[in-house]
């Protein structure tokens, strides 16, 4: 730990050095041997403050203090070859700041430092690293990269290639901190098209050689794993009864009848008088099988055809690979371990098993202008209609039917439709339009096993036969983009839950930026959807210095 903190100091010194360079005319467009190199980066310091007060799954007051140093560079050895790389270092100062905080320690947040204090894996520090070669009608990019498919924002339907980093939750999510670049080869071919209607046409192929299997980094159960973002879920066998004296200790209420009668067991009168205590889901001791490096089991293949017909952009997408999230189930016949934390919270820690299931996806997207909705009174801008749909063949789910958990495969259809519409609201902003982006999503599971069953998608998301959700993003800008307020809400209609994020970004200039916002969660159905984050309401802020 001491060594890591020294590392942080070192990185901070480097970042400050970069800051000084930036202020002393540090060159960002360099001429190296007659070829150009661009160099950029930023350092940022964020903080989040809980609005939910003192809860077992979060801290009162300051909850995080995330520092990021990021640098990126490109270099063109020739006109047709571009090398690009970016590196970042992320640390959460909260672990140092709360090093001796009793509440922090009793809730075991300090134990999550291995996961969240420093991002010190190579694939976290080397963000992107790739070469792009364009030759003739082809463009080839090889290396650690991001390949984003689809048209929807926020909810990934077709965009399944790169894993996500979800460990730090929903506050102030940025591209560099939420998408994980992986080792891929991408080849695009654009044949010459002699057509008055097909204006452009391209074929894109993706190959993932599984050089290193990097799955999505989920928010994890248990304060000692997921820290302040651990989902607040009731334990499967909650409530518990804490039986004093030598003996069984914490016992699920539902299992009291299985205790031996007195004198071997506790007297019924004693049991009846003991409080029933809620227990929460704790760390999952998971045995998730994943492919070894270069193991063909982890190879992935993607094919995408994209075309521009008239004023409409279409893509057809196929993907054969591994889900970035595992399907998991409790190990049959093994009861979870139960313990009481120092803060008094009872946590249930199940033993899980699972694997990263195969994805077989076929999808299409479309984006076009809706000129018929162009209204002069609203600013005269035609909205863009975006549509995306994907059919999953034999998608894996966890089926829970009573005490029995099994892995099953179902075909599913996910689709979404959205609009990007800029509208004038002169009363609120006389100089800039408001960008209004509503989206609607639907997932249907074919052959759903029935109302008695619970179906969990990879990652453990509860899934009904039909699942509906929607989102709305509204944003505008004032003073030449210096002040950018925005509001985002994601509504889970199926589970009657929502997440919202109002935010204001202030750019003093193109070097210094300050953002402040809040994340609010609510859910009407216990243990589902955003109800799991009901205690995570928080305000956040971030100061960023960019060197351009």
């Amino acid at each position, binding site marked *: 730990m001491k060594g890591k903190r020294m590392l942080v100091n070192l990185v901070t010194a480097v970042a400050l050095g970069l800051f000084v360079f930036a202020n002393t005319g540090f060159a960002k467009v360099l001429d190296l041997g007659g070829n150009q190199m661009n160099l950029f980066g930023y350092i940022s310091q964020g903080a989040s403050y809980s609005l939910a007060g003192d809860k077992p799954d979060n801290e009162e007051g300051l909850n995080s203090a995330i520092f990021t140093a990021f640098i990126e560079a490109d270099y063109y050895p020739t006109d047709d070859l571009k090398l690009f790389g970016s590196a970042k270092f992320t640390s959460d100062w909260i672990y140092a700041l709360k090093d001796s905080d009793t509440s922090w320690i009793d809730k075991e947040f300090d134990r999550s430092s291995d996961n969240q204090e420093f991002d010190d894996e190579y694939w976290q520090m080397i963000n992107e690293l790739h070469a792009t070669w364009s030759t*003739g009608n082809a463009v080839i990019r090889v290396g650690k990269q991001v390949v984003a498919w689809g048209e929807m924002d926020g909810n990934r339907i077709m965009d399944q290639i790169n894993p996500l980093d979800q460990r730090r939750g929903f506050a102030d999510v940025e591209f560099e901190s939420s998408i994980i670049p992986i080792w891929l080869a991408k080849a695009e071919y654009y044949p010459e098209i002699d057509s*008055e209607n097909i204006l452009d046409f391209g074929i894109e192929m993706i190959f993932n050689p599984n050089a290193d299997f990097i799955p999505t980094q989920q928010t994890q159960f248990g304060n000692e794993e997921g820290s302040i973002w651990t989902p607040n879920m009731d334990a499967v066998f909650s409530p518990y009864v804490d039986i004093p004296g030598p003996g069984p200790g914490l016992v699920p209420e539902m299992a009291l009848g299985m205790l031996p009668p007195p004198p071997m067991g506790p007297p019924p009168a004693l049991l009846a008088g003991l409080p029933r205590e809620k227990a929460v889901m704790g760390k999952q001791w998971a045995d998730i099988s994943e492919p070894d490096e270069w193991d063909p089991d982890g190879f992935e293949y993607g094919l995408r055809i994209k075309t521009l017909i008239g004023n409409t952009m279409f893509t057809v997408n196929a993907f054969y690979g591994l889900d970035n999230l595992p399907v998991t189930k409790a190990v049959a016949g093994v009861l979870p371990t139960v313990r009481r934390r120092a803060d008094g919270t009872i946590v249930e820690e199940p033993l899980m098993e699972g*694997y990263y299931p195969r994805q077989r996806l076929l999808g299409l997207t479309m984006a076009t202008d809706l000129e018929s909705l162009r209204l002069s009174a609203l600013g005269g801008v035609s909205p*863009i209609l975006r549509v995306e749909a994907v059919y999953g063949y034999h998608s894996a789910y966890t089926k829970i039917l009573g005490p029995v958990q099994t892995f099953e495969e179902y075909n599913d259809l996910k689709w979404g439709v959205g609009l990007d519409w800029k509208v*004038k609201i002169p009363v609120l902003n006389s100089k800039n339009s408001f960008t209004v982006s509503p989206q609607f999503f639907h997932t249907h599971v074919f052959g759903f096993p029935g109302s008695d069953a619970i179906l969990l998608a990879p990652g453990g998301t509860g899934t009904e036969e039909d699942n509906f959700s929607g989102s709305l993003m509204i944003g505008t800008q004032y003073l030449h983009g210096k002040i950018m307020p925005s509001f985002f809400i994601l509504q889970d209609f199926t589970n009657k839950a929502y997440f919202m994020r109002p935010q204001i970004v202030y750019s003093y*200039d*193109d070097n210094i930026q300050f953002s402040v916002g809040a994340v609010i969660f609510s859910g009407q159905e216990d243990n589902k959807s955003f109800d799991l984050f009901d205690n995570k309401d928080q305000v956040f802020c971030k100061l960023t210095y960019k060197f351009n």
Partner: protein
Amino acid sequence: MNPNPKIKPRLLILCLSILLCFAGNVPAEEPKVNISFAELMQHKQVYDDTTPIYEKLPVKDVVTPKVYASVTFDATASSEKWAQAVGFKAPDIVGKIAPQIKPGEYSYDQKESLPFKELMIPDHYARFAPGAPPHIGNFSKIKVVPTRQYYWALPIAKASLENSGKTQQDGKGYIKDETYKGGYPFPKPSGKFKAIQVMYNWEKRYTQADNYTLYTQSKGFDKNLNEDFSGLVTVNYMRLQGRLLSEPFGWYDDRARERGELTSTSSFSEAPRDLYGNVLSLQSYVAPDQDNMFLMYINGLRRARKLSGSDTQDPMGGQDLIYEDADGFNQKISPDRYPYIYEVVGEREFLIPAYTLDGATTIDSKTKEFANFEFERRPLYVLKLTQQDENFVYGQRTIYVDKETFIILYTEAYDQKGNLYRTINQNFAFFPEQGMFIMNDFLARDHLDLHSTYIKSYGVPAPNLTRDDFSLKELAKRGK
């Protein structure tokens, strides 16, 4: 795992084979433009640098001899033919207002003692002063140069002369585009549609030739004249209708003819970091009621997205101009969509910073004054455009157009309440051997939010640009 091992080696071999096929299929291409921003910035800085960039880094040293030969013409023949087309040479028709102001250097403290007020656009007269907030671009010293004759390249001059009178207008002055054959459609604007004819000359303009690459450095300034934005953008431009300078001539291809395509533009942002790796592709059309087609590779999404082609009234990237302000006036001349009433409200000479031959202009880093700009007596049209749709961002625009070149040099835009909203100054580099004008200095000022945007450009002819350079492939190639 649920492996299916048989299929994988085959797929892997297939993918690698296709990759190798691509790699082996490398057609020999002539480099499009042989310069980078890094090299360009070594030759010329925005601040305090009076280097005559077009002398120190002449176009002929940047492009191949073959390209240079293809874009240069007999200057004497060009100038004579153009004078024939427009019917005059500028030096012959100026010098009548305030003749006591002769070529030479003047300081702002002389502006009261000489009739500069009579000879200058009011805004320029006000800016003939030391640098001071809230906007950049004052002139504490000006250099008045003799009026020159400017002209367009010989093929443009010839086409304008030969096609003069062929472009037909309807009863309201809007042209029937099928009758436009190339060149400037109205080299001698006249009659009751004179104002709209001048604007059509601008719409069919040949600035930036048929194919060009522009390297632009932009700076933003707040009301205290502090720089708050610095950007680098490379722009590729290709004209698709009425091509006269680079093959293919006329329409670029059948697709352009059938679809009525006017221009293709792509831009690649290299700075600041937030914009780095954004690539924009824009297709504009001849038809006044047809929206442009916008495609953009968005760095933050790592995706190419379709944007609305009608999103033209919001400020572009925090700058002091909207899409419709690009090049001074970029709005389609339409009878239905945000139509104007076009009037000529003035036709006289002004002393104005119009053109540079060497690109030696610069900005004083301390005062944010413009320096080394050459003021020249130019014969101008003053046009008043009154907007007929109360929902448009501007209620009126006043446009100053050079009578000899049909280039817009200065514009004022007023909001729907009549408040001065934005002004734009354009200073072009003129290349005598090419008979061509390329944007050199662009200044946009917001008079409501008190902000300024300055763009310095360096232009290079790029006749070997093709549709590829504006395609999805370009987005994939250039995108972050």
